């Protein structure tokens, strides 16, 4: 039995369905369909086949010996560090795990059109990819700021046949893209499935996306047991909306000996106004259909988030993480833009793996986690995606230093 209560999509006081009435019946239909098909053997078999043959699962668990050596040198702590390689999924991130499942469900529901929001563009690319695979028209909403800083992913979506709508409203980032996707869905709810990309949003999305991503944790659990003969001491993942973290955590949540750490984006520092540390600095509120922690002012106006990584640049977070935070089952740290950039370079140089800037936040959390562990402990870091999409941003920051 999971320690996380999930009746009616509630995680303690968090979650639920806070949406306009027009969407309520569609969410009920979706929750019923998910309940039904997630146990349906034919559906499961098709999902497993796609995960294997199309996504490329299982993804490896790679031991990072030189990274562990670096920790030993700098902190005097001897750890075994393992990387869960979601960067090796087709399309370059964990996002495809969720999209494959949701598109199968959309097909069962007879939906003829697919929409999604995207921040870094990874979820947009993953959605456009499965839409192409299933021959469905696809439209992606993306903040105009993100269109700029993740332009490579915009080209990929175009090539895959998706239409990309730049969203200029509000802060022109992920939260505004979600608002616009919800507006589209309200208008076209009869024909359209909204592939929400993380464990946020109204019920059943947090539960459904968490279950679809739980393949990460299931694999990692078996893989680390095969490698070390036991469970890990800690798991570490970055948290934007929280789907790659939830996917990894699900594999270990009932094992109290496994510490769970989420790393949020501290941007320019959590004591500045420019960060995205929703669990670290936010308060309970309602955003995008669920009760959860949000970054907002005393009047309830949502704050602008900031992170160098578009996928973490979000003033909300999935409700299950809010519950895990309050219950103490998981701890949430944060890493600044600079720490993430340094961690990105560190992983590149130690292991020959260039992580996405999102995932680099998880790597940046390692020193603080190491402090809380003893010699001989093992840690899994979720490398949620690869860094190719971030080369423009990284080049701008490292510039000459890298080319020299």
């Amino acid at each position, binding site marked *: 039995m999971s320690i996380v209560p999930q009746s009616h999509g509630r995680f303690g006081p968090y979650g*639920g*369905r*806070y*949406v*306009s*009435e*027009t*969407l*309520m*019946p*569609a969410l009920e239909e979706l929750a019923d369909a998910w309940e039904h098909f997630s146990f349906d053997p034919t559906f499961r078999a098709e999902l497993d086949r796609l995960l294997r043959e199309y996504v490329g699962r299982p993804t490896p668990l790679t031991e990072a010996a030189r990274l562990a050596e670096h920790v030993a040198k700098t902190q005097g702590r001897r750890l075994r560090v393992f990387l869960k390689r979601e960067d090796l999924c087709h399309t370059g991130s964990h996002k495809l795990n969720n999209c494959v499942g949701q598109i199968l469900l959309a097909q069962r529901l007879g939906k003829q059109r697919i929409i999604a929001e995207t921040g870094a563009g990874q979820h947009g690319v993953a959605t456009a990819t499965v839409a192409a695979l299933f021959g469905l028209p696809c439209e992606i909403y993306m903040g105009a700021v993100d269109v700029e800083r993740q332009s490579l992913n915009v080209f990929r979506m175009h090539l895959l046949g998706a239409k990309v709508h730049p969203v200029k*409203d*509000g802060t022109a980032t992920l*939260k*505004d893209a*979600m*608002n616009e996707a*919800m*507006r589209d869905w*309200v*208008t*076209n*709810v*009869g024909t359209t499935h909204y592939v929400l990309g993380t464990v946020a949003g109204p019920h059943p999305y947090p539960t459904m996306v968490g279950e679809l991503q739980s393949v990460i944790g299931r694999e990692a659990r078996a893989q680390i047991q095969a490698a070390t003969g036991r469970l890990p001491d800690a798991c570490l993942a970055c948290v934007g909306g929280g789907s790659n973290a939830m996917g990894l955590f699900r594999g270990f949540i009932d094992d109290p000996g496994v510490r769970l750490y989420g790393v949020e984006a501290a941007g320019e520092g959590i004591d500045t106004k420019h960060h995205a540390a929703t669990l670290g600095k936010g*308060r*309970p*509120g*309602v*955003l*995008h*259909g669920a*009760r959860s922690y*949000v970054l*907002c002012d*005393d*009047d*309830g*106006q*949502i704050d602008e988030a900031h992170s160098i990584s578009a996928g973490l640049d979000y003033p909300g977070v999935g409700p299950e993480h809010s519950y895990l935070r309050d219950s103490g089952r998981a701890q949430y740290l944060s890493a600044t833009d600079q720490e993430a950039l340094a961690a990105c370079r560190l992983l590149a140089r130690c292991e020959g793996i260039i992580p996405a800037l999102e995932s680099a936040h998880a790597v940046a959390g390692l020193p603080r986690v190491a402090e809380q562990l003893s010699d001989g402990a093992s840690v899994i870091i979720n490398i949620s995606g690869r860094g190719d999409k971030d080369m423009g941003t990284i080049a701008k920051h490292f510039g000459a230093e890298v080319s020299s």
Partner: protein
Amino acid sequence: MTNTPGRPFPSRIAGAFARARAQGRKTLVLYLTGCDPDFDTSRRLLLAAAQAGADVLELGVPWSDPSADGPAIQAAMRRALAAGGGMAKALDLCRTVRAANPEIPVVLFGYANPIFVRGTAKFAAQAKQAGADGVLCVDWPPDEDPELAQTLAQHALDLVPLIAPTSTPERVKAIAAVAGGFLYYVSLTGITGSQLPNLDETSARVRQVRELSGGRLPVAVGFGIATPADARAVAGFADGVVVGSAAVRVIERAVAAGRDPVPALEAFVSDLRAAMG
């Protein structure tokens, strides 16, 4: 205790619908975003709308993330937020409108987060104290989480709910059971400010909503009603007509042209009123 017509407190909203009915006409509900384009102009606009023939005012509470609203109201909210608008100012605005007009029913119309962050009990007490009569919270379905409905009832405030074309009969019944004031039937599956759909279907749905709710509350129709002709057509079958985006656009145009928006809005509301008979 839910807020039913037999309840022990008088409702200005019920009174406005009853008065219109007695006069053989339909109720005009006017939505304006509070503090658009600024606090004082907004106060004058709300009072002028009441004077020109609006029977009920919906005072929109500006929010940073209005995901159920179309471009017109999104832009209004952006102007209002830039002018310092928000929940605190919307409550102030309600108070000043109430001080100047003791009769006009006011519904605070907004999103969940500003209510939630304030705390529902504190919000309800402040709304009541500011002279509001009801609350419409777009993204807080009453059956999903009864806290808001219960708290409003304790403070003798009407919970005005949205009912959509997609609402199942069971949902209509459940929602109507905790509603007060009137039922707001959304004419279309979409956001505010969209095109008005085929009215035959809307009229049939309004009839169905009345049956399912046992005729306990009047049914007003909104979303997409842009012109006096639209208002007249909808008044043919609904108890009330809600106009929002079109009124907001009248204000936007006047402000963009550097004019005081009050006369333009007054004229628009009088035209709506006249068309509805």
